[in-house]
């Protein structure tokens, strides 16, 4: 799964620390999400989407081939 988290976060001028604090997760989790090393739970995906006032699909792009 790809995501546009880093791009959206930077466009809003928010640091990883600020986003992590707002979502109650560690900064490392934000870093891992942005690098694509970690896929979030559905709850965290909703929290991120709501934080940026976007839909989950606007941020996370599911690629079926990549999951196979």
């Amino acid at each position, binding site marked *: 799964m790809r995501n546009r988290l880093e791009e959206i976060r930077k466009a809003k001028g928010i640091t990883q620390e600020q986003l*992590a604090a707002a979502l*109650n*997760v*560690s900064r*490392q*989790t934000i870093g*891992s999400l942005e690098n694509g090393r*970690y896929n*979030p*739970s559905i*709850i*965290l995906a909703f929290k991120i989407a709501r934080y940026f006032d976007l839909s989950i699909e606007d941020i996370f792009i599911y690629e079926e081939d990549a999951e196979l």
Partner: protein
Amino acid sequence: MRKGIGIYALLSSTGLMLLLWGLFSDNPMQTGILVSVGIIVLGFSAAKGAPLLTSKEADKESSVIEWHDERNIVIREKASWYAGMTTIAAMSVSAFALVMANQFVGAWVIAGLLLLYSLSIILFAAYFSKKL
């Protein structure tokens, strides 16, 4: 020095002393009791004290966030699973080796395995927590 580390260091030393005292005792019953209590005290203090040595200084709030962080939870679960599996494999080999050595019989085998088990869990859990 981190808070509480002194108590666990003292407990570790006590556990080690009890263990050594038991090892060099001539009375088999005394040996069994001292070695068992020593291992329990050493294992408990090591398990409680090791996180204090390896963890970074952080305020309480960030520690709570780190503990409940979903990625950290996944890593801990994976680390526990790998540590458990690796320990089981290591236990099988070490049990075989101890029995084959034929020097450690009865309580010695159990004491040795308990000690190996405690240390393996702590070491592998720490190793896989970093690696995964």
